[in-house]
Every structure is written in structure tokens, then in C-alpha cells.
């Protein structure tokens, strides 16, 4: 068994096409995913947008407006140094999320010129005589914001700025009404501070339900690992074919040896399992350390997931390899077809596939449970998205159970020693 194990290891690791599909292909796909989905998480982050701020007479006349704009600007100094306004009476700048990268301009015409030249300025903020703020964006920005996914950062940023301005205007209207009834209050600097604080305060706060920050793109990488695991079935399919007398001359020669068949099969299984595990661990390491996709700090569980996934893939490979009356090419084709099709339902092929996977999980959970690609994907998903290890243990028990069923089926087919046809 030891010799068969060593030989199977050597043949697996020296077979160039297997190495490509099992080591290079997942890494290439992960690299592609990394390029495709790198901005997916960032789309939900708020980045300051380049916006011109018109510092005209109306702007200078309203200290609330100035303070608010300063509060949401990243480049405060530039804004204040270029301002023709009198020094602001509100000195303390409230701590808040910066929303704009302010480009001060003196007039609206100047702002429009900036937009026309398309110098990267998305729009401009203007103050009306009441001190209310409005955001105007260029036509090209409007197209960009409604366009492809890459521009979702712009879309999100502008929406937030617009909401912030609306909120400011609403508060300003309230203050104006209060001021008309109680003018002394407006002269109170503390009241000013409170107002600005209120206007720039976050109305939401982030709550995490897990120990780790979930990453939207991580699921695609996990689905990729599911596919990579199933592709590695080919190790076992090939290895089994090479020990069956009805499939190869090599199998005939090995069948004539005085080694019990189960010993050879054990050697083949262990070697294929190890090769498959190595291939998966390499893929996980690449995804974790090069693509920076988290496994929630549970690297140890990720390795266990790889070993469990490899166990299932090898068992499936042994089962397919043991199918009677089919050539090796047909069996390899079945393995590849299963890997590709089952990966569709585990969400590998983009957002549509991911939604399909979610639909199946919601509406036909049994189908999702029976999909080995989904279970392998879930192994990694459970690690990242759940605090408890119970979901992970549940998935791993399903994976091992499926593998045991495959091994039992393969054993029934491989117990034959004499064939009716050769």
C-alpha cells in the first residue's frame, strides 16, 4: 500500500495537465476574481467626492453653512485659506465623516467652468440667500453615477452628500423658525455648536452580527474553492482507472500482482486525498494572503475545511472512477461536467449564480444540501459568517457523510475481480 501511495503521489504531482487544472487554474481564476470583485466591498465605503464649493456672498453670510461645509470637507485648510469670507465664529470643527474633497471657487460661473472642463470635479455646492445648500452635478457625472458597477462609489458618495445637504437644510429651516421667535438664542455660541453637531451627526451606527467583518466578494472565492475541490476529483478518477484491468493495460498488470485490491485502492485513495488537500490548501493560501480574502482569522478551520473537501472530492472521484463500462475519457468528462454544473448552483459564475444559489437554499434546501459544491462552499462560508462553530460542524458532517456514501458505492463496484468483458 505504501508503494502504491508513493507511486500515486508521484504520478499525480508529475502529471502536467492535472497540475494545471488543480493548482494553476484556481489561482488564475482567483486572480481574475480579485480584479473583478476588488471594488465590490469598497463600493459600500464612503469616499470624499471632488466637489466645488461656491464661496460667494451668500456662503460668507451664513456661518452655519460655512461650518457645515468645513465639517464635511477633507481639505479644510484649503477651504478656509481661499475663503474671502470673514473668520468663522464657530471655531470648533465637529468630528464627522468627510464627504467632500472641497474645491473652493468664488462664483457659480467659475464652478460651471470647472465642470465644463471636466477636471474631475463631479459637481458644486451652492448656498442660496437663506443659507440653504444645493448640490448640482454635471451631465457626465449623472451618466457615470447611473452607469456601470465601477461607478457605484460615485453614486453612493453623491447620494450621501445629497442626503446630508437635505438634512442640513431641514435643520436650518427649523433654526430659522426658532430664530424668528427667539433671536437671542441664535447669538449663543453653544447653540451654534449644538446645531452643527446635530447636523453632522450620524443617524445610524454600525452593528456587526459576527466576529468578523463580512466581505461581499468572499462568497465568490469560496464558490471557487468548491469548484477547485470538485475538479480535483480527476486525481482519483485517473488513479482508479490505472488499477482496473478493464480500463488499461497498466490496470491489467497491476491486477495480476499478488497485492490485494483493497490495499492498492487504499494507497490510491490516501495519495489522491493528500494531493487534493495540498491543491486546495495552496488555493486557500493564495486567496487568503494574496487576494486578502478573509477566513475570519480561523486559518486552522480553513485547513480542516480543505481536508474535508478533499475527502469528499476524492471519494466522488473514486466512485466515478469505479463506474463500469465507461472509458477513462468519459469518466473524466463526467467529473469535469459535475464540477462545472454543480458550481453554477453554488454561485460561482457571478451575481446571477449567487442569487440562484440563495434561491435554492431558501426554496429547495434539500437540493442545496445534496450539492457537494454547495457544501464545500458552505464549509468556508460557515467559518467566516458565523461566530459559532456549530454550522461548520454541521456542514462538515454532511460532507463526510456524502463521502462515506460515495466510498461505499465505489467499494461495491470495485470488489469485482473478474470481468465479463475486457
Amino acid at each position, binding site marked *: 500500500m505504501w508503494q502504491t501511495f508513493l507511486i500515486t503521489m*508521484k504520478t499525480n504531482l508529475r502529471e502536467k495537465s492535472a497540475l494545471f487544472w488543480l493548482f494553476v487554474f484556481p489561482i488564475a481564476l482567483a486572480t481574475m476574481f480579485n480584479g473583478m470583485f476588488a471594488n465590490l466591498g469598497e463600493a459600500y465605503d464612503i469616499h470624499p467626492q471632488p466637489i466645488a464649493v461656491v464661496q460667494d456672498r451668500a456662503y460668507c453670510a451664513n456661518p452655519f453653512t460655512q461650518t457645515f461645509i468645513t465639517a464635511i470637507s477633507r481639505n479644510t485648510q484649503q477651504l478656509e485659506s481661499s475663503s474671502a469670507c470673514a473668520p468663522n465664529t464657530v471655531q470648533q470643527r465637529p468630528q464627522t465623516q468627510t464627504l467632500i474633497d472641497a474645491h473652493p471657487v468664488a462664483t457659480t460661473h467659475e464652478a460651471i467652468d470647472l465642470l465644463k472642463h471636466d477636471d474631475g470635479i463631479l459637481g458644486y455646492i451652492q448656498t442660496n440667500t437663506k443659507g440653504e445648500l444645493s448640490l448640482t452635478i454635471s451631465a457626465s457625472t449623472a451618466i457615470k453615477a447611473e452607469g456601470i458597477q465601477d461607478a457605484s462609489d460615485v453614486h453612493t458618495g453623491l447620494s450621501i452628500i445629497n442626503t446630508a445637504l437635505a438634512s442640513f437644510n431641514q435643520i436650518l429651516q427649523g433654526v430659522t423658525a426658532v430664530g424668528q421667535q427667539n433671536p437671542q438664542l441664535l447669538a449663543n455660541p453653544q447653540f451654534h455648536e449644538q446645531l452643527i453637531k446635530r447636523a453632522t451627526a450620524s443617524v445610524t451606527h454600525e452593528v456587526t452580527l459576527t466576529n468578523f467583518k463580512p466581505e461581499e466578494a468572499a462568497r465568490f472565492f469560496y464558490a471557487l474553492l468548491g469548484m477547485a475541490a470538485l475538479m480535483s476529483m480527476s486525481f482519483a478518477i485517473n488513479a482508479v482507472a490505472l488499477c482496473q484491468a478493464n480500463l488499461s493495460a497498466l490496470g*491489467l*498488470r497491476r491486477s495480476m500482482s499478488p497485492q490485494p485490491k483493497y490495499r492498492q485502492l487504499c494507497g490510491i485513495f490516501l495519495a489522491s486525498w493528500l494531493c487534493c488537500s495540498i491543491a486546495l490548501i495552496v488555493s486557500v493560501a493564495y486567496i487568503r494572503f494574496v487576494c486578502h480574502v478573509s477566513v475570519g482569522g480561523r486559518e486552522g478551520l480553513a485547513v480542516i475545511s480543505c481536508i474535508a473537501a478533499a475527502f469528499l472530492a476524492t471519494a466522488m472521484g473514486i466512485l466515478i472512477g469505479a463506474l463500469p463500462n465507461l472509458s477513462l475519457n468519459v469518466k473524466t468528462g463526467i467529473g469535469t461536467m459535475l464540477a462545472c454544473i454543480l458550481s453554477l448552483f453554488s454561485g460561482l459564475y457571478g451575481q446571477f449564480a449567487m442569487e440562484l444559489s440563495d434561491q435554492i437554499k431558501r426554496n429547495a434546501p434539500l437540493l442545496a444540501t445534496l450539492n457537494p459544491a454547495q457544501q464545500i462552499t458552505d464549509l468556508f462560508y460557515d467559518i467566516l459568517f458565523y461566530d459559532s462553530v456549530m454550522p461548520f460542524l454541521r456542514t462538515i458532517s454532511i460532507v463526510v457523510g456524502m463521502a462515506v456514501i460515495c466510498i461505499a458505492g465505489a467499494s461495491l463496484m470495485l470488489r469485482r475481480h*473478474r470481468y465479463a468483458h475486457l
Partner: protein
Amino acid sequence: MDATTPTPMAVTVQHLVKRYGTHIALNDLDLHVNKREIFGLLGPNGSGKTTAINCILGLLSYDSGSIHVFGQELTPANYALKRRIGVVPQDVAVFNELTVLENIRYFCSLYINDRKQRNQLVDEAIAFVGLDDYRKFRPKALSGGLLRRLNIACGIVHRPDLIFFDEPTVAVDPQSRNAILDGIQELNRQGATIIYTSHYMEEVEQLCNRIEIIDHGTCIALGTAEALKNSVQAGERIVIEAPALAEHPDLQTSVLQRLRALPFVIEVQYANTELTVEAQRGEHNLVDVLSVLHNDGIPVGHVSARPPTLNDVFLELTGTELRD
């Protein structure tokens, strides 16, 4: 061993029947191979040779009959008996990803547990097939002849008592073929029993002590090469170059009629300016044939007369129609 002691058998096959559905692949086949002999198994494609060998090796199930190897039934779990058998299949059965040394070492390890003994046997096998300079080569880097020799080394490395060679010289050059045939004879001299199948009649004739020809799953001839040649009707083939007959069709017809009338003549053909006469064994056949031509004043060129070959025997027994 005295004359009354029966010759110990390496392989005994009796009344073997194997059916594929309605097709009978082996039809009451008998086969007896003595220990330490080189036994040739001949037959056209589809005659049942490979089926018979696979049944003997215990790989193929059969419908009835009995098979014994060294007096025992070769069941899948009879590992002691399997240790005594080596197989050199027609298709080269080695790992393409392993070197020559690794391949031979692996197949040896399936039979020999002791590492020291294994290393010695591997070295001997490599030396035997002349692959010393190619130990680190992978099969893809070997020529056809070297590949065949590797195939043989993997089958004989554990020093089996009974070796099956299934067309081991297919697609190899004459030098490699001679080396392979010499090697097989050497294995036999060292005590191995050989069962050899081939379509190269001259090889079988050169190597084998006894030959069995099977067709349609049945034994149709068995004996030494000489005995088989004597058993067939054709005893001599005379070929005479006579271009003049091609220029005179009437004369050609007349000559062919007179030749056919000769008592020892079996068949006469004229084609491509050559007259071919199949004759029974006789001492004056050539003289009598030449006399007929001389009487008609027909000039003759090159003349040859040869006894029948195993190929003639094979074709006479199995027919000349094409097989699958």
C-alpha cells in the same frame, strides 16, 4: 524423470467455453503447456487468443471448463500463485510519469517485500533488458524498442516461473526484436515457462517448442513447428519466372492444364510473369515441372523451390479471408 512420469504441466485448460451473449469466443478449448517450454499460441484476429489468456490469468470470467496453473486454480485471492506469474501485455503498461528505474522498482515492489532483494532484482532486470543507460529516462523519452524492453522488464523483474508474452515485438526494429527474442530464450533457459503469442510466424517458429493454432475459439492444430508443417497438404512451393507465357495466352492455358494434371500438384497459378506451383512432398517435383515447360520450349528465368513455412500452415488452416 522416467518415461512413465507424466510431464508436469504449467498450464492446463480443459473444455473452456466463454460466451459473449450469443457469440461463442472460446468453444471447448483445450490447452496444455508443459513446464519450462516456450509455447506459441497462434490465431487470426478474433480467434480467441487474448480471451483464452485473460481467462487463464483469472481476469475474465468463463462459462464452463477448467483452468489450472501449476496444478492450482488461479483465483483472484491466490496470491502465492500470482507471485509465480509474469505478464508482458501487448500494450506497453508502464507509468509515463515515472522513470525507467521507478517503474521497474514499483512493479517489483508489488511482488517482493524485502528491499535488499528488490534492489538486486531491479538491477538484474535492468541489465537483462539492456536499459542501464536509461534508468533516469521517462517512457516518453524512450524509442519504441526501448519501451518494449521496459515493458518486458516490468513483467519479469520478480523472476516469475510462468511468463505470458503477448506480441512483445510489435513495432520494434530488427535489432530490438532480436534482443527481445534472445532475452526470452534466456529466460526459458533459466527455467521460466513461456506462453508466447505473435503474428510474426518466423518468431514463433524460431522460439517455440510447441505451437497451438486456435480459430473460432477452438484448437485446430497443435505440435512442434516441424510437425505442423508436415501435417498440411502443401509440401513444397515452386516458383518459376516464365515471362514468355504472358505473351502467349493459349500456350499459358495449355501449360497450366498439363501442370495441373501432374499427380503431385495441388494448385498452379500464373501471375506477374511468375508461375507458382503448390505441390505435395516429393523428391522430383521440380524436375517434372521444368520438363513440362522445356517440352513446350518455354524459356525460364529464376527458379526457386522451398518447403512450406509456418505462415503457409497458418494460412492453410485458418484461410486467407480477411478477419476483423
